[in-house]
């Protein structure tokens, strides 16, 4: 059993940690790393590591051309600590390190469900997850650390939608930094599920789910790193897409885990979703990982054969959810689709793999938040962000990187290979999104590992960079439940067609919560 020196890791991660936190994290890390040990069951000695899922794309460069810079005023606009055009910091040679205690003012709640963080334009129809940078409009990532931050630029996705006439109405609540599957990890309080306000709406795009399901908007952006679009779609009776990794620009979307983050959309039907998706499914010169030659070029036959991963229906899945999934396959079978069992033998390692790769990347991506150029100091990070930053700092640190980070990258290759094999037999995969129904707010907060395991069915597609559409397939105790259609890379058009067909055959997606 690994004993983590939490103090040392906190230093590596540049995070202030109290004694109480030190004890708690020490216990939780033991538990999480204990679970991760299961990766050692796999022999990866002959497997090469996967760090990106880009169809083998290489050499994405820009020409040496000057582009417009920000003005000095813009550059300095998000901090009060300046001096004559410079950013001002404490004397770097001082050995005295002062930790600023966070002074957090509670945020005024805007709506009943706590789905909305900022009102933008009452005439708008679109809600943006607060990870999407909106120029001059507060963007918080759901964290106190960015409270009050008004970005100097807008995300490519925000721009594309606005250029198409889709006006922004709200900025939406979320698990801070995308860290969560339930919507309870927002620093501004949990979002509630409009189907039952005592239950979670799913996360991390929790506000996107709740605001859409309660009819406050017609379209919501979200990001899916490991189910963050699919989970709230599933729990709020919505249709959502996690695109192929690299299909939609990440530029201006606050990074959680860069090799996994997929900006995407949520709507109330596959038809509406497809229309909006076409607007953002574009290469972006500012995001090197969108510039892939094979984008949208894969010629695919229409879906005829659908695979059901047997591992997903045999483990800890709720019986009534399994029943809904089987009902859905029945519907499709009755309408001419061939349904067959497939195997994804390494899918069960998805969570262990994910909880090495994602924390490693997030510990790196969240290193820029030092309170110098924008935002508050690092002491403003919430408990889940601290947990993941420290976990990531540990598994990528000297002496442990090969055991954890590199190992996970190799297992990732095996998970990708499983899918490749499966797609030689079937055109798409149908699977549950969540092993459990929406649960009570607060029910699982004390057990991070149990919450992490909620992502067991969403992790494999995320790690493989595959597109997946989540759509409603029934109700359990009056709470919605969803399924996901996972296809090969760049098969979105096919998945949309299948989702549209299913929504012609069923009415689940038309049901609305009583408010």
């Amino acid at each position, binding site marked *: 059993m690994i004993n983590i020196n939490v103090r040392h890791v906190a230093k*590596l991660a*540049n995070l202030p940690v109290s004694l109480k936190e030190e004890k708690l994290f020490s216990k939780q890390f033991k538990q999480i790393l204990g679970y991760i040990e299961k990766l050692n069951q796999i022999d990866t000695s002959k497997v090469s590591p996967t*760090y*990106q899922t*880009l169809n083998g794309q*290489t*050499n*994405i*460069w*820009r*020409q*040496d*051309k*000057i582009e*417009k*810079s*920000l*003005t*000095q005023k813009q*550059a*300095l606009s998000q901090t009060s600590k300046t*001096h004559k*055009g*410079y*950013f*001002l*910091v*404490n*004397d*770097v040679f001082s050995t005295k390190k002062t930790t600023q205690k966070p002074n957090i003012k509670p945020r005024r709640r805007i709506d009943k469900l706590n789905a909305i963080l900022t009102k933008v334009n009452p005439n708008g129809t679109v809600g943006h997850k607060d990870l*999407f*940078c909106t120029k001059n409009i507060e*963007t918080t*990532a759901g964290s106190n650390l*960015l409270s009050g*931050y008004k*970005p*100097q*630029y807008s*995300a490519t996705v925000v721009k594309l939608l606005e250029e198409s006439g889709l006006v922004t109405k709200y900025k939406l609540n979320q698990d801070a930094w995308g860290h969560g599957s339930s919507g309870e990890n927002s620093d501004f309080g949990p979002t509630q599920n409009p189907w039952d306000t005592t239950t979670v709406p799913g996360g991390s795009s929790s506000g996107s789910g709740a605001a859409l399901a309660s009819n406050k908007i017609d379209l919501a952006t979200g990001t899916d790193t490991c189910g963050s679009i699919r989970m709230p779609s599933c729990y709020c009776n919505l249709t959502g897409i996690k695109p192929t990794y690299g299909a939609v620009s990440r*530029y201006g*979307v*606050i*990074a959680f*885990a*860069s090799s996994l983050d997929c900006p995407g959309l949520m709507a109330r039907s596959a038809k509406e979703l497809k229309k909006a998706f076409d607007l953002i499914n574009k290469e972006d*010169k*500012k*995001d*090197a*990982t969108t510039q892939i030659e094979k984008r949208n070029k894969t010629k695919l036959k229409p879906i005829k054969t659908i695979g059901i991963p047997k591992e997903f229906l045999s483990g800890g899945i709720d019986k009534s959810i399994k029943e809904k999934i089987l009902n859905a396959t029945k519907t499709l079978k009755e309408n001419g689709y061939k349904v067959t069992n497939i195997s994804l033998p390494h899918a069960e390692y998805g969570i262990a793999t994910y909880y090495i790769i994602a924390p490693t990347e997030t510990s*790196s991506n*969240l*290193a*820029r*938040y*030092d309170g110098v*150029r924008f935002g508050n100091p690092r002491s403003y990070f919430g408990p889940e962000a601290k947990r993941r930053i420290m976990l990531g700092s540990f598994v990528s640190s*000297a002496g442990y*990187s090969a055991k954890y980070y590199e190992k996970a990258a190799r297992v990732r290759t095996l998970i990708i290979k499983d899918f490749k094999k499966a797609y030689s037999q079937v055109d798409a995969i149908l699977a549950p999104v969540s092993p459990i129904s929406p649960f009570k707010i607060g029910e699982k907060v004390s057990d991070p590992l149990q919450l992490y395991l909620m992502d067991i069915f969403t992790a494999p597609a995320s790690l493989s960079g595959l597109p997946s559409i989540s759509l409603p397939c029934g109700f359990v105790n009056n709470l919605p439940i969803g399924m996901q259609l996972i296809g090969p890379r760049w098969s979105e058009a096919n998945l949309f067609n299948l989702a549209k067909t299913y929504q012609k055959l069923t009415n689940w997606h038309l049901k609305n919560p009583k408010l």
Partner: protein
Amino acid sequence: MKYTPTIGMEIHVELQTKSKMFCGCPSNHFKIKPNTHTCPVCLGLPGALPVPNKKAIDWTILAGLAINCSINKISKFDRKHYFYPDLSKGYQISQYDQPLCEKGFVNLDSGGKININRIHLEEDTAKLIHKTIKGKKVSLVDFNRSGVALMEIVTEPDITSGKQAKEFLKKLHSILKVLKISDCSMEKGSMRLEANISLSKTAKLADYKIEVKNLNSFKFVEQAINFEIKRQTKLLEKGIKPKQETRGFNSKTKSTFSQRIKESAEDYRYFPDPDIPPMHFTDKDIAEIKSKLPKLPDQQIKELDLPNHLAKLLVKKPTYLDYFNNHLSDAKKLKLSSEKFANFIINKKINISKPCKPQLIKLTKSIDVGPAILLEVIKENPEVVKKFKTGKTNVIGFLVGQVMKKTKGQANPKQAQKQLLIHLQGPSLQATSQ
């Protein structure tokens, strides 16, 4: 028993690309209004993403080829993590285990050979200024330099003295100058030097390393190394192992001083940058860059029809060399030897920002104030010459004026006076008149 110094160098070179390494902001940051060449990428704003500058990659490969490196056909960018206010993202995009160039060498004129471990490409940090404002010590940050393309050349620990380090650096500098990929100015900080120095009695490397940073001239490198060799020898002779540390250099006292003790190796938690696809190079790609390799100093020196010392001086300054090569035919037409022409350029007798021919004519004519004109003037002014010979030497001015008149101002008055004096005072007036 004597200790053998083991010295390795790390040289940071800022590339003079128009735009920065990963964004379109101008690279120029010297004496620019602070924080005016920044954007979401180089300021490390939330959500911003890097896209590499192709020219910087090509130029780093070019530098590698110039110092005999092999080019890695598979390369990538990695994130190097540490926290400092001059680092906007909490990590620097650099290269870890697959740098663009590896295993090169530089031959020294004195006979040695310095092996190059690697050249990698990374981004520069912001600039920190330390000040006291209202009685409080603070640091000010200017992000104009943040993200500028920076090439790091790392040598093997092959250097054995301060003198050799200086020779190596001068040679490297001359090579990089010819490539025109950096202005290599130590004053502006576009070339920065660090030396790692240790001593040992055996052939084995010492188990400690002293790093001397912020050396902004070749002379200082030499002085710092000499100082360190003495300092470390003294310690070792007393049986004390020098502390593993980073030291600074005081150019006034020519000595180094402790800056930071390194208790353990830094943990930079390198991993491949997921925002940037890897780089693959084919033989053709590399050959294409190689075809752009200009003539290197050694070859240039060899090809110049000049004595070695003159050739070296010309090659050291590419602008001089270009001027020399471009106008050598003019000089030849005026029957000027290439040696004399080179001397004119090196001694700044010729302004290289101006056309060459008129300057050459002027210079050559002023030399051609030969005996004929001088004798003419002397013969035409017997009274004045008489005065001169009786001691009124100040009349020489009149004679010089006559020379100038005859040459229509082309002669060099100082030279004319010198030659007149030789003729008037010398015993050989008769002889020269023959």
